[in-house]
């Protein structure tokens, strides 16, 4: 099924408590090479027809205004999968 994938991450400068918690847990279980973890979200928008450029543009607007909170999050990627 064609879909648009929106990836959202907490803003680079902001603390990411879940990421920090996971990083600490990994460290405790011996994964010393992983120095940091940041956790964001991936959102799939499904279509039952081929995706157009207009769909992607619209997804960009929806991602910025509705799917993410632009005060604390950034939309880092919008990609499509056919």
């Amino acid at each position, binding site marked *: 099924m064609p879909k648009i994938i929106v990836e959202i991450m*907490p*803003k*680079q*400068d*902001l*603390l*990411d*408590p879940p990421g*920090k*918690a996971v990083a*600490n847990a990994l460290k405790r279980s011996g994964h010393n090479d992983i120095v940091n973890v940041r956790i964001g979200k991936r959102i799939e928008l499904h279509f039952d027809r081929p995706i157009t450029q207009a769909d992607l543009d619209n997804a960009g607007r929806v991602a910025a205004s509705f799917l993410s*909170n632009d*005060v*604390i999050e950034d939309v880092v990627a919008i990609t499509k999968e056919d």
Partner: protein
Amino acid sequence: MSKRPTNVDTVSDAIANDKEQPWKELGLKQDEYQEIKTILGRRPTSSELAMYSVMWSEHCSYKSSKIYLRQFGEKVTPEMKKDLMVGMGENAGVVDIGEGLAVTFKVESHNHPSYIEPFQGAATGVGGIVRDILTMGARPIAVMDQLRFGAPSDPDTARVVHGVTSGISFYGNCLGLPNIGGETVFDKVYQGNPLVNALAVGVMKHEDLKLAKASNPGDLVILFGARTGGDGIGGVSVLASETFDSTGPTRRPAVQVGDPFAEKVLIECCLELFYAGVVAGIQDLGGAGISCATSELASNGGKGMKVQLQNVLLRDDSLTPEEILMSESQERMMAIVPTKDLKAFEAIVTKWEVEYSVLGEVIDEDRLYINWGEQEIVNVPPRTVAHDGPVYHRPVEYPKYQDALNANSSSSLPRATTPAELAKQIMAIVVSPNQADKSWITAQYDRYVMGNTALSMPDDAGMIRVSEETGLGITLATDANGKYCQLDPYHGAQLALAEAYRNVAVTGAKPKAVTNCLNFGSPENPGVMWQFKQATAGLADACLELGIPVTGGNVSFYNQTGDVAIYPTPVVGVLGVIDNVARRIPSGWQDEGNNIYLLGTTKDELDGSAWAETIHQHLGGKPPVVELAAEKKLADLIHGAAIQGMIEAAHDISEGGLAIAVVEAALRFNVGARIWLDEVLERDDLDLTAALFSESQARVIVSVGREDDVKFQSLCEARGVPVLRIGVTDKASGSIEIKELATFELNEVREGWAKTLPELFG
């Protein structure tokens, strides 16, 4: 690979060349910038400029309010100070409550961040006030919140309501602190400027009291807790000192993200550090971050400090020294530790997996030196940053609209002429958002965690057991009435105090101390400054009359959107002490056939009332008359009767008048009553509208067992408190019958009352 900036502005640069600096962008005024140059005898380095700009902002320096706040320390008697262990000026006031225990409490605003990012803004508001309490050496034991939102019908209100309430519940619940009360009010004046005032209270043994000072040269300066990142840089100065415009924040995020689990660990870690006696001074990092902590610790101790800023543990090593100094990353503390105790300190923080780094040491010199590697970037007298900021005598002017507002009394408003119409008005007020059931909000908060909550919402005040052995407890109530303050800020502030005082008293506790959070518009508006001047004078005078001292507080200015300021909203918190929480008095009726008494007298006072607002959308006239002497008598009476176990329930009469008080007392435990008002009408010369809805002060309804009727009435008489029997409780009826007016089925009343908020926001 390190991205650490190397090209920094040093003290020698500042001596060598006088360049253009962005003082204006940082919120400083021309004369303030000049003053900094005079203090230093040169231009400041960019790091120094960052420190001064944030520490001299309204939020940190209280430059517009200072001259008025002094009276809280001046209008006191020795008797009032007797139990005050720490007064104004510290992180929070400390009150001796007996049994070798002390309580510290404070309320602080997080208004602007909560509008920009409601969830994190409110969450970090809770985190910040809890750290203030912790800093005093106390274990935090409860929180409360005073909330003001815009009109319920406005689409943006739901965004703020959802974010703020879930932010508070998230942070507080994760910390495991009960949220025992507060207040929520909706009014369109708060549309673009909601108020989120968070209160925290903590308890300690007298000997555990800690102060934020660095007094022994050679002691180490240690930063511990979360790492420093780029969050909330300039948040304090930018967010708290500038009114919102349409452009909003840019560059680095202006908000911070809180991590309550990190804070919980930090609390336990700090308490263990305190008990081990390895900390000589401690300061939490909130607004203004390291700038504030270093300069205040040094200034409070009358000493200096040498700090290596590159020792600060960072989340992002591209941060510039200016950003590190201003960062408002949460969950951080700064400790002053004697060198001999460093090992013990390390052992404890390591046990709690809390990161720390030694930044420098205390020095015997009136100077704060901060280095960036080999380069000196700050060299200032700490007092000039922390305490000797500018003091403004801002212009004060009686607002032009005030006379017309006061002349527009509610007396001309039409009143109901039939019982049916009155009954309809009662229900309209019961279901109005400001009087309706707030469980939709308070049910999101854990009210009972830790198992010491004796009273919480919807009772008049929150009560926490402090000693499990003796039952010693404390009561807290916070109140504010923006409408009363808009009509008359002097008496409005007194009315907020009177209500909080009464709310504490009705639980059976003895009111003991006061904290406040003064929310106002722009101090650059002379009309707002007049409101501020009046409100602070009113509050200080009333505290003196009631004999309870102000222990500390917070000022929040610039609460306005464009030219339109919020109603002046001084939030007043009153702390009370009760010998044994087992003797607490709930707000609701419980037993069958108890007599219901109205204490105090009623005047025809409907200006600024819930009735005027809900029925007529009217605000004008003069607020109810303040009756402090009567409040005191009333509080003493209830305290006396509570000790004898005479009072079964007591509920304060405030917004909505007697009608709302009766409905709330009945709904609390679903116990109905038969009420008659003829004697009140006759004694106080009132019509039914005034009897039901007047917001006259110093009034409480109490229920007392029938066998104590004579005893109770004589007690009231002896203490000079007017008393009238106005009804009896009637458990079986399941209704409130107001004679010659109407009968309200409790089920129906409850349904309307309970569904308002879920329908609006659920």
